[in-house]
Structures are given as C-alpha cells and as structure tokens.
C-alpha cells in the first residue's frame, strides 16, 4: 500500500523531530520529556509494525550526480528483524529510563538525545545507500557521546564519551573510504551493488566496511571504548551499548555479507575477528569486579558471534543472535541500573545476594544471566548453535566452542554473586546513595525483557527457525539435534563447573580480578591519544620555528638588503653625484687662477691661446 513509504519516513523523522524539540527547550521541557519520549516510542512501535508488514522502500533527495546519492531506505528481511528489535527494546528501555532517572535530572536533554539516537538506529538498519548509512551511523556516534557524557559535571564521564566517539570515528574512516571505493567500483553509492564492484575497489570497500563495523561493535582491537562507555547512565548502557548501537556493526557485516564472501579474505577476517573477540572478551568478562564492566565485555563477546556469523555466511543465525542478545543484555542492564539506583553500587562485591533483595528484578536477572550463558532451552543457546553450525574449519570451530563455554563461565560468575546469600556486610552505596526500592515499572520492563530472553529459545525448534529464516530472507545451516544437544551439554557443564569452582575458591576470583584480564589486557592503551598529541606538538613547533621563521627570515633578508641598497645609494650613487659636483667646484677654483690682474701675464695667456688655436686649425684641416 502507499502508506508504507510515508510510515517509514515518519518512523525515522518523528523520533528525530521530537528529540530535537526536546533539546531546544532545555530545562523547561523537563516535565513532559519522559511522557513525550514514551509516547513517541509507542507510536514508533506501531509504525514499525506497519513497516514490517509492508516492507516499503523510500527515498529522499540528498546528493546528486550519481546513483545512490539519495537517502534511500529499504526494509528487507534483515532490516525487518532489526526494526522489530529496535522498536521493542527502545520502548521498554525508554520506559525504564523514565522510571530510573532521578527527578532533578535534565530530562529534556536526556530524552532529546535518546530519541535522536533511536531515529539514527532506525535509519541505520533500513539504509540502502552509503550516504544514508553514514549519516545515521555518525549521528548515532554523536548521540552516544552526548549520552555517555550526560553527567558531564562528574569528572571522567565526558572523557569516556570522547574516547568512545573518537574510537568509533576512527573506525568510521573506513566507511568514508568504502564510500569512495563504492563509487569507483560500481559507479554509484548503492549498498546492494557492493558485491559487484570491480577488482581492487571491492577489496578496499570490504576493508573499509570491516574496520568501521569492528570499531562500532567494540570488537578487537577497538574494545576498550565500550569499557569507558559504561560511565553513562544505565538506560544508555541498556539501549546503546548493548542492544543497538554496538549491534549496528554486526548488522552492517550481515548486510554486506555477499561482499565479504566475494572477496574471500574479508569473510575469513571477520570470522576470526569475531571468534577471537568472543573468546578474549569472554575471558575478560570473567575477571571483572564491576557488574557493568562484566556486561560490557560480554556484549563485545556476544556480538563477536554475530561477526563470526557474518564471516561464515550464517546471516539468519547472526540476526537471530542479534535479536536474542538484545533482549538478554537489555534485561541485564536494566537490572544493573535498578540495583545501582536501589543499592548504590555496581561492584560485584556490593551486589552479593542482590537477586534475593528484590525478587522480581532478581528473577529477571537470573533468567537473563542463564540465557547469557547459553543454557538450554533459553534464547542464546539456540542462536549460538545456529551461528556455530555455519562455521567450518576445525580451529575456528574449537575457538567458537571455547568462546561459547566462556560465556557460560562468566554467566556463572555473575550468578554466584547475585544468588549468594547476602551476609549483610556488603559495601552498599559505594557510588551513590541507594534508594532501597525498585519502581514497579522497572521490574515490569525487566521481566518482559527476560521473557523475551527466555522465550526466544523457541528458535531452536526447526519450524520456528525456518519461519525466522523466511522473514530474514536468508537460508542458514540449521543445527542438527545432536549439535544442539552437544552445545547445550557443553554450556551446562561449563556453567556448573564454574559455578561450583567460583563458589568454593574466592581467592581464584580475586587473582583473576587482579590479573591483566581485569584491566582489559591493556586494550585501553591502544586508544591513547598521547602519540597524536606528541606529533601535534612537534608540528606546532616546526610550524613556528621553521616555516614561519623562514618567512620572517626572508623578510629580514629583504630588509637588510634594503639597508645595504640604501647605503650603496647614499655612498656610491649619490657619492658619484657629489664627486661630480666637487669636481666642478675644483675646476671652477682652478679656472680662477689665471685672473692675476697683471697685464703682461694676460698677453702671455692670449699668445698661448692663439698659438694653441693655430696648431688646432692646422691639424684639423
């Protein structure tokens, strides 16, 4: 129907417009910022439903001269799955944010950027041309900066936001290069044409897209920015840095999977990058002492599976993993946010037994944590098996399984703390004064998300899996029953073993926390700005002392030459003139000499003169 394209545009424009309006009103809009945001996300959910059914495509004029310069949005199967994800998660987390934000916070600014981000995410997952993608991609990065640094008055927040923005921006340079390669290789800027790009440009485009996606999804070696991003408010972590923005990198790789396959090396690079990230970041997650840091590391690890899926061609499995992970992680971050507000801490030491204090949140978090560990029959078990079913090559498979087991380990790590019996001596209120209560809305949101987290396990059932494959429009290698059982057993075994070991050996936990894994194996040093600042200082010094001095030196040389010329002018040129004048004066003096007044001398002079003239006359004739 004709409503589809308009609804798609509205889906992107409405949250953006409301967001900008909230930003412009400043503090005066605080009172109705949260209701406006919730209503907007509800309307967006309705619009998303229409869009999912209708699968429209639409275009807005933007750049010219080349095909694909317009802002084109197209909802195919993969986009449909993501649109649904964004719609549901954004509604739930916005509701959570409305309940969780302290009353005196600058709600207008918060929800303004929040809605702007949501609009950017909708645009990203439906973009069909490079300008549209890049526009939405970078807007997401900018809103992420603003939201991480939301409480800029507190030291360190804005620095973390800057780090996050600059790291993702560094990755985004790859997209700019890929844009040029797309134009060079296909004569246009349409994303779908990328696999058909000619020769070397195909490789350049693939490399660029890969770098951008890895950066946005906090894969190795970019992962450290996600650690800093945890400084943002809980709702920001729940939406941006778990479910959506970091998922955008994985989505992009799934979107351009044909391109990765066509170049060969890019698919392998993506697969290995994803698998290694899943393993290493999983290990890092185990060693964290802060719940949000653990969740951040596990986010990067789980998205690693999506990247692995894109590399191996399991598009359906990868998108299923995205959807399931979004629900699981959002639930966990909502719980972490609820505990931060209620107990005033996010350190695992202080959260001992937190699941028992508030039963609803505790139940939701426990279910979500089990799902995170890949325990059957919950969602991530099913999706991870779909991803791993597509991997071929033994080493890659082994790494994949190891990463899968690792996720069970850190899930166990979480649950050993959360489900323990509280001793009553936990260090509460370490970060802010806790309210000791969890609003009903927050519990409801968490439970709904946990329901999805568990319920999506139905994807293991072949008919449902096939239906999902149809929606996404990709055929994936379905995991056989034996694979599912094996994977489930592996997860259960790892989980149980870790649970028991970690409970029995607290010293082991301590040593893990103190190891380099606890400090994210120094990945943060990779993102240090010090080399750039040193180069910048050198450049500024050279500019002042060499380049400018050369110019001023040239000016001084000219001035000195001018003074020499002035001296030469005075001494030589004018001197010659003065000498000539002196000469004439001397001649005049000499000419006076014969005037002696003695007549006989005058006769001699006359005779001499006449004689001279006579000689002259004789000679000349």
């Amino acid at each position, binding site marked *: 129907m004709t409503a589809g394209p308009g609804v798609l545009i509205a889906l992107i424009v409405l949250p953006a417009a409301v967001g900008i309006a909230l930003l412009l009103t*400043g503090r005066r809009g605080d009172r109705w910022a949260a209701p406006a945001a919730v209503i907007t996300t509800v309307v967006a959910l309705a619009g998303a439903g229409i869009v999912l059914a209708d699968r429209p495509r639409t275009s807005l*004029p*933007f*750049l*010219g*001269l*080349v095909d694909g310069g317009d802002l084109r949005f197209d909802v195919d199967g993969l986009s449909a799955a993501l649109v649904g994800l964004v719609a549901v998660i954004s509604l739930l987390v916005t509701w959570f944010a409305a309940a969780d934000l302290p009353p005196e916070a600058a709600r207008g600014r918060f929800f303004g950027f929040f809605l702007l981000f949501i609009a950017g995410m909708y645009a990203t997952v439906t973009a069909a041309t*490079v*300008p549209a993608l*890049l*526009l*939405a*991609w*970078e*807007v997401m990065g*900018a809103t992420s*900066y603003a939201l991480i640094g939301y409480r*800029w*008055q507190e*030291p360190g927040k*804005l*620095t973390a936001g*800057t780090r996050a*923005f*600059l790291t993702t*921006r*560094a990755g985004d*340079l790859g997209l*700019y*290069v890929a*844009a*040029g*390669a*797309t*134009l*060079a290789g296909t*004569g246009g*800027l349409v994303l779908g044409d990328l696999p058909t790009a000619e020769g070397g*440009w195909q490789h*350049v485009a693939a490399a660029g897209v890969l770098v951008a996606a890895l950066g946005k999804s906090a894969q190795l070696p970019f992962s450290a920015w996600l650690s800093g991003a945890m400084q943002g408010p809980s709702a920001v972590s729940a939406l941006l840095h778990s479910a959506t923005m970091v998922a955008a990198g994985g989505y992009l790789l799934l979107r351009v999977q044909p391109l990765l396959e066509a170049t060969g090396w890019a698919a392998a690079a993506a697969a290995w990058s994803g698998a290694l990230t899943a393993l290493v970041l999983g290990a890092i997650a185990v060693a964290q002492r802060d719940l949000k840091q653990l969740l951040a590391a596990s986010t990067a690890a789980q998205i690693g599976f999506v990247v692995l899926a894109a590399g191996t061609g399991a598009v359906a499995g990868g998108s299923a993993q995205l959807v399931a992970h979004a629900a699981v992680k959002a639930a966990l971050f909502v719980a972490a946010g609820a505990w931060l507000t209620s107990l005033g801490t996010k350190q695992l030491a202080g959260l001992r037994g937190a699941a028992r204090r508030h039963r609803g949140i505790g139940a939701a978090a426990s279910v979500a944590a089990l799902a995170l560990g890949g325990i059957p029959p919950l969602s991530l078990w099913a999706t991870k098996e779909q991803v791993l079913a597509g991997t071929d090559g033994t080493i890659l498979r082994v790494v994949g399984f190891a990463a899968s087991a690792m996720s069970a380990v850190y899930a166990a790590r979480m649950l050993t703390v959360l489900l323990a019996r509280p001793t009553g001596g936990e260090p509460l209120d370490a970060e802010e004064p806790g309210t000791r209560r969890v609003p009903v809305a927050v519990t409801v949101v968490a439970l709904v998300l946990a329901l999805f987290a568990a319920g999506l396990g139905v994807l293991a059932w072949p008919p449902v899996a096939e239906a999902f494959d149809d929606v996404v429009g990709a055929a994936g290698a379905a995991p056989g029953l034996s694979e599912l059982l094996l994977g489930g057993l592996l997860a259960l075994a790892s989980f149980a073993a870790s649970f028991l070991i970690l409970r029995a050996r607290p010293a082991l936990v301590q040593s893990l926390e103190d190891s380099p894994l606890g400090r994210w194996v120094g990945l943060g040093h990779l993102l240090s*700005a010090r080399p*750039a*600042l040193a*180069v*910048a*200082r050198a*450049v*500024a010094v050279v*500019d002042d002392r060499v*380049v*400018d001095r*050369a*110019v001023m030196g040239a*000016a001084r040389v000219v001035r000195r030459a001018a003074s020499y010329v002035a001296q030469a002018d005075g001494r030589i040129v004018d001197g010659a003139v003065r000498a000539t004048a002196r000469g004439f004066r001397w001649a005049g003096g000499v000419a006076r000499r014969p005037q002696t007044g003695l007549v006989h001398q005058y006769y001699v002079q006359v005779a001499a003169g006449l004689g001279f003239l006579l000689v002259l006359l004789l000679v000349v004739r």
Partner: protein
Amino acid sequence: MLLTVVILLPVAAAAVLLTVPRLTGSTATWVWVVASLAELVLIAWMWLRFDPGTGAAGVTGGLGYEVDVQWIPTVDAGYHVGVDGLSLPLLGLTAVLFLACAIWSLRQSDRPRMHAAAFLFLETACVGAFAALDLILFFVFFDLTIVAMYFVIAGWGHGNARRSALKFFIYTFIGSLALLIGFIGLFLGGETRTFDMVALAQNPPLTDSPVAGGLVLLAIGIGLGIKTPVFPFHTWLPDAHTDAPAAGSAILAGVLLKLGTYGFIRIAMPILPDAWQRWAMVPVVIGVISVLWGALAALAQKDVKRMIAYTSVNHMGYVLLGLGAAGLAADADPQARAVATVGAVYQMVSHGLLTGALFLLAGILWSRGRSYAFNEWGGLARPAPVFAALLAVAAFGSLGLPGFASFIAEFQVFTGALQAAPVATITAVLGILITAGLFLNTLQRLLTGTTVVPDDRTDTDTDLTEPADAVAGGATATLARPRRDQQMTDVTAREVLAIAPLLILAVLLGLFPRLLLDVIEPAAVMVTDLVSR
C-alpha cells in the same frame, strides 16, 4: 544592472556614512546593518530568479546578470561581471556573513563610523571579486580586499595588531603580485590577447607550450595558494586571526580565504586545463599536507583563536584535494571527479558559515575576559549554557558530523577523490579524526571542569575599569583597580542573533543539501568538463 547595484551598494552606503555628519555612534552601525540586509535581500532575489540549468552550465556560458562594459580597450580589459553556479553560493555566503558581523558590531564603541565604513568597503571588494569575469577586475577587487582587511586588523585589532596586519598585508600582497604575473602570462599566451575570463575559458591560451603553461600555473598557484592558504604559505594566518577583532576574523576566514580557492576553480582550472591536468597531483599533495598539518598544529595550540585559524588551513586542504582530483582526468571517471568538484565548492560555503560562527564565539570569550588562552577559561557550561550549546553545535559542525553542511562537502570530496588519488585520499581522511579530537578536547577544556575566568588585569580600557573616588582631602585620585569577579555572562540577544543563523544555515544545508547542490552541480560539472579538455 542588478549585479552592479549589488556590488556597489555597500560602498555607496559607506560613502553616505562618511559624508553625512549626523551618522555617528550606533546609528552608523545600524546603517551598516540595513545596508547588509538590503544586500542579502538582493542576492536572495538574484538566487531565486537564477536558473542554474541542468547538465553542465556556467563558466563559459549560461551566466546570469551579465554586464560587459569596455574599460581598457588596448588590453581588452572590461567591466565584465556575472554570476553562475560557482559564484552565486559565495555571494550568498558573503552577504550572510557580513550581515552577521554587522549585527555583532552593534555594540562597537570604538569609532563605529569608520568601522562600519571599512567593512562596507570590504563587502564591496568581496562581492566584486566573486562577480568579476575579467582578470584585471578580479585582481583589483582581490587587492582591495587585502587593503580593507589591513585597516580592519590594524585599526580595531588587539595584541600585536599592527605587526600582524602588516605581515598579512605584505604576504598576501606579494601573492597577488604573483597572481598578476600569471594573469599577464595568460594575456600574452592567448591567440586573441584578452583578459576576459569567459573568452579565455572558451579558448584556453598556452595550449601548445606546456612549459609556459606550467610556469603561468605556478605563478597563479603561488598567488592563490598564499591566499587560501596552503602549507607552507599559511603562517600569516594564525597571527592575523589572533590579533584581529572578532568580526574581522569571521570575514577573513569566511570570505577572504574563499577568494583563493575560488580563483583556482574560476581561473586556474578552466583557463589552463592542460597545465592543471599535468600538474594535478601537486594540489592534491599540497592539499593533503595542509589537511594533516593544519589539524595537527591546531591540536597543539594553547589559544582558542589560533586553533580555529589552523583548522581553516585544514579545511581548505580538502578543497584543494577535491580540485586537484578533479584534474586527474586520466585516472578517474568524470562522474567521480565532478562529485569531488561539487564537494570542494560546498566546502567553501560550509567552512565560511561554521568557521565564521566559531570566530564570533571566540569573540565572546574576548569580550568577557580579554583572553583566548585555554588555561584561563574552564567550566563555562555552568554560567553560560547557551554559549556552551552554540559552541558544541559549531564544534560538531566543524568536525564534519553528518547533519551539517561540512559532511556533505567532505563526504563528496573523499568519495570523488578516492578513485583518482587513492593513497592521498586515504591519508586525508585521517584529518577528520584529528579535527574530531581537537574539537572535543576544546569543548571539554572550555566547557567542563571547574569554572575559571581570566584574572583581572591592568586594562587601559575605560569602559571596563570604574573610576574610583578621589581620596578625601583633594589629594591625587587613586584609581583603584577593582577586582573583576565578573562571572562569565551568557550570550546576549545580539550575539545569539549574529551567531545562531549561521549555525542554523549550516544545519539546513546539511539536511537539505539540494538547496545548494541544485545551483552548484551544473557549474561544477561544467568545470570538470572544461578541465578535461
């Protein structure tokens, strides 16, 4: 006729200002505001009635509001003016920026009449230079801008104003002499000896003598390169900006620098296509060096205004990259090269708006605390949230975030130039990362942290210190220097009225680029075709 009115209206207003004795004080500035507003309305009217054409149009034909009157018949130099898709956006930019500066200067208390007259004269020179279609006419207006800006910096600047103004004047004037030598070379090299740009573009001179063509291009390149400015001719810019008044800096960065890049696209490329094609890697390389050098040098600055000045070097580097890539006809499709050209022209407009706004924002710092140093300001978001918001918007615009005109420009430059010069473009892309870092750093240092304002200093400005009462008993009055515990006050309505429209325009052109692209694209395609001959 309309174009001639547009060119001469500001100088006529200046003449009125100087001759009518009653126009003093703020009335003088209001005259300037009214004249600028009229100028903007006229140019907007021209814009609406101008038909940019489709496909390739402009430069050699399809010019609007053309006037051609003989001036010096022996060398075929005439008063030939007209607009096309290249000059009309820049005329619009000039009008908008001068109006913003006029509004900004409404509180100018130091010789407002001469101030307004100088800027009006400068406006005529700028508009004339963009509208000129004759080399000698262009040269005359080019030099007049240098003269007028010298007076602005020397007369109303601060710090080392005289010295910086002199450095600016002599450096760019030498450049304009190199330009003149190039123009004379063009004149002598053609079959029909003429200074008319349109005629020269239709029949390019020096086609059969590559050496002469290269030398003439070198002369023109040096002349325009000093104005742009590119590395290594850029060192006059930081000093000139640091010591210029806020409005002067905004015009210097927003309009005058564009004369250099405009000269490349109007004169060098269409009139010397062979030489440009042969030597196209030179502007590409110099552009990339300027991009990185400008960004890195900006990152290390301790002074806000100097930092913004270096970012201008960086931004103009992208323009040169785009124009150079457009000349690499053998290595790239005409489509991609046209995209690069469009990006370069768009960058001229975008940079003018955003950097003009940035310099006016820096002017706010000067007016509050007489300092631009980073370590003397801090935590300004608390006392001045609107200032903080404007600065953040301008900073993100300047670093090229999508949603701003700068993204449209830089994206098209990179996308179009990659095919022609891949290594150079990939290197240049690093520039947007470095500028992101330096602008976020600036925001953090100026806006967050503990609130800091510069210490009171012994000023000689009478409007800042208050005269203390004489010591009782008739002894000499001790002028006590009051401790200015003056907090950073937020922006006034006048300041917002000057700055906000520039930023709004930058966002508008970032989200609805077709407004500007419809005008630029035909002319840019024409230039690309002409340079490929």
